[in-house]
């Protein structure tokens, strides 16, 4: 189920991206989104360590140790790509030149707050580029498993230290698609075979049920 759930999320998020979008994908699940882009949709991936035009993994034996993604793995650059330094990379991010970023979350709440970078006393890896991405990207899409072993991650109010306040635009889980609006969280889509009761049970935040509520298509 876990693998399937991630694929559902990645496939659904892929449909949010538009042809020509400049996109930064976080490490892990968000990276999978690139595999499921609808036909005719080509996005340009930005890699915050210093380039646009992030391509796939190189053929075995053809790795270039000078060319890695933000996770440190060897990658390729597509034709039309461009390298730059870290200051410009984050200028592109903060300056609103990235159309969408897809990130995972530990917690997200009714006001669009996001916590995804530390658990005090347990996991303190540092925020890396996440805070700038969440503040700067035009659209922040959270892709995550709906709850953590039954304990809700979509909360009234985040408990963990925030990555950014009020910046999340959309939450996609294997069970639901939720819009963050001025009025609160709006449940727009329900996963296939998932009941509304199941979602409400697994969600601490208040959910406004959209009048156009529909089944998630992936």
């Amino acid at each position, binding site marked *: 189920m876990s693998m399937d759930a991630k694929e559902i999320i990645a496939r659904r998020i892929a449909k949010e991206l538009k042809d020509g979008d400049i996109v930064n994908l976080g490490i892990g699940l968000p990276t999978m989104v690139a595999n499921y882009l609808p036909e005719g949709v080509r996005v340009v991936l930005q890699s915050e360590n210093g*380039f646009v035009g992030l391509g796939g993994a190189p053929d075995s034996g053809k790795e270039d140790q000078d060319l*890695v993604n933000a996770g440190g793995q060897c990658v390729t650059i597509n034709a039309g790509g461009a390298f730059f*330094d870290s200051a410009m990379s984050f200028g592109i*991010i903060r300056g609103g030149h990235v159309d969408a970023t897809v990130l995972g979350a530990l917690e997200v709440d009714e006001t669009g707050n996001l916590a995804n970078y530390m658990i005090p006393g347990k996991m303190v890896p540092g925020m890396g*580029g996440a805070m700038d991405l969440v503040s700067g990207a035009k659209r922040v899409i959270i892709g995550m498993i709906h709850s953590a072993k039954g304990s809700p991650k979509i909360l009234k109010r985040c408990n963990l230290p925030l990555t950014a306040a009020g910046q999340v635009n959309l939450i996609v889980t294997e069970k639901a698609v939720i819009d963050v609006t001025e009025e609160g969280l709006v449940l727009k889509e329900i996963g296939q075979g998932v009941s509304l009761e199941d979602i409400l049970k697994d969600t601490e935040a208040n959910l406004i049920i959209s009048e156009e509520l529909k089944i998630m298509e992936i």
Partner: protein
Amino acid sequence: MNKIITIDQAMEKIEDGMTIMIGGFMGVGTPEIFIDGMLEKGVKDLTVICNDTGFVDKGLGRLVVAKRLKKVIASHIGTNPETGRQMNSGELEVELVPQGTLAERVRCGGYGLGGFLTATGIGTEVEKDKQKIKVEDKEYILELPLRADIALIRGSVVDKSGNVFYNASTRNFNPIMAMAADLVMVGAKEVVEVGELDPNHVMTPGILVEYIVGGEK
């Protein structure tokens, strides 16, 4: 003016307690030759400014493992468990800075600016103890410049006057750090004659580089 020196000569410039910027991102674009040199010399109590602390066996993470750092200012330490362990045990002071803010603080230090306003970190722990300034009703954090005694950078192609070309994703923090330190030393993968680098392709002008050490991998 001969800028090419040996690694031993380079190490004579580095003293215990110094603040050092080290280029690289997850060890890519990090001048390993200087890390080797510092480990061998036994220099200690360093404050290091860097994007991340690399891995236990790659990049400047090796300095962490060997307990040569007193403090580190970085955006990410998660790939090197030893950094977190020393932080939790109180052996190592860690200042975590958002990556874009870190890059900009280094640039500010090198570009002669007194600080800058960013929205990154507003509403988070990052804003703690910092001055906040409103511009046209939007709130920003005033972030301050960073400078170092020495910047250790890695160049892919370096001419003998110190002009540097960085290949692919090795560029990252190197060009801005080369502006922000009193002394700049570059570990060069390839050293070429003056005039061989097209002035259009130079990413760090030689006027910013004091010394070049060849033999970087």
